[in-house]
């Protein structure tokens, strides 16, 4: 038989075999999730977050009970699902982390440096207060439809900005978010990449963060995920609650609007 023909058939078979192994790997993780059922180690982080919210802290010895996440001071249920949104008291659109920073500095008297000092866990850490707070706040929106506010002009402008940032190519590798997340059916090594320009992909991504990251043993937030993507894109460090991270999260949330929140999720 012609060598090229054999090569061709072999290539097709290898492709099929790999695809099968790949989908088995995917399937294995789904089975794992099914086995855990409602269980998620994040439950403990959620408890911590709730406790932190009600515990006085900072120079003003105040808790976060008066923090307005968009539905009024102290209203946490349903708030995450409507973020990012415009806040008149700061005249800008904020995500949950920017809003928590605002509350920590205004209500508790912490300095921005203290808030930004270490928002996210480093390797080997057991979780930060911010991660716990976001886990609890997101859990209070579990099951509710993703519905970021888009009524205010600044909210819509933030979406447009997010879309532009999504396609912004830079750095030594010329990466943008779109490099990995603009097409369907793609993966990097064996990690599937959701197409974030579509409802399906954006919903899948936005609804499942924050998430308990099994490999790290802690809860990671969407803000952290954005920062870590930027790191992998060979960009500098994305500041928590900054305009760019809020814009990118808005882009995702609006694209995935309508899908139910399922956070904290469970990830590898």
């Amino acid at each position, binding site marked *: 038989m012609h060598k090229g023909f054999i090569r061709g058939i072999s290539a097709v078979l290898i492709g099929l075999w790999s695809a099968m192994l790949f989908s088995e790997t995917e399937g294995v993780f789904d089975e794992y999730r099914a086995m855990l059922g409602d269980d998620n180690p994040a439950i403990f982080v959620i408890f911590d977050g709730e406790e932190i919210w009600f515990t006085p802290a900072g120079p003003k010895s105040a808790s976060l009970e008066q923090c307005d996440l968009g539905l009024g001071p102290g209203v946490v249920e349903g708030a995450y699902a409507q973020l990012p949104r415009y806040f008149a008291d700061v005249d800008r659109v904020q995500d949950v982390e920017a809003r928590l920073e605002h509350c920590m500095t205004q209500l508790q008297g912490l300095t921005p440096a203290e808030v930004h000092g270490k928002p996210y866990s480093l390797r080997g850490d057991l979780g930060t207060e911010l991660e716990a707070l976001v886990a609890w706040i997101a859990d209070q929106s579990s099951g509710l439809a993703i519905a970021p506010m888009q009524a205010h002009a600044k909210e819509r402008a933030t979406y447009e900005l997010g879309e532009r940032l999504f396609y912004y190519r830079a750095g030594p590798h010329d990466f943008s978010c779109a490099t990995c997340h603009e097409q369907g059916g793609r993966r990097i090594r064996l990690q599937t990449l959701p197409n974030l320009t579509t409802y399906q992909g954006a919903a899948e991504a936005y609804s499942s963060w924050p998430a308990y990251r*099994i490999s790290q043993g802690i809860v990671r937030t969407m803000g952290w995920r954005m920062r870590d993507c930027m790191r992998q894109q060979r960009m500098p460090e994305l500041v928590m609650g900054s305009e760019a991270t809020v814009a990118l999260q808005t882009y995702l949330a609006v694209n995935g609007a309508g899908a139910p929140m399922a956070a904290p999720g469970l990830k590898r």
Partner: protein
Amino acid sequence: MASRIRIRAQLKDDYCEVKALMRHPMETGMRKDQSGAAIPANFIEDIQVLHNDVVVVQAYWGAAVSANPFLGVRFKGGAQGDVVKVVWRDNHGDSGSGETTIR
């Protein structure tokens, strides 16, 4: 080095559901560090769930259980206010425990 276990025990239908999260590296002994030397095995071998000091679950773990294990078990016969305890011992002889009351 005793280590804390976070536990929750809740009554559901006709059983008590226990969830526990423990910190442990669960090192298999197969991994190598930067210099190429094997990282010593360090994993939980023995774990028990006790209800009012009676062992209701006895498990023998090994290197295949992943780091920071999350344990979920159910047992019958628990009542609100009863004490549930989880105790582990690893291959170095270290142990950890935690307890809670059933809600």
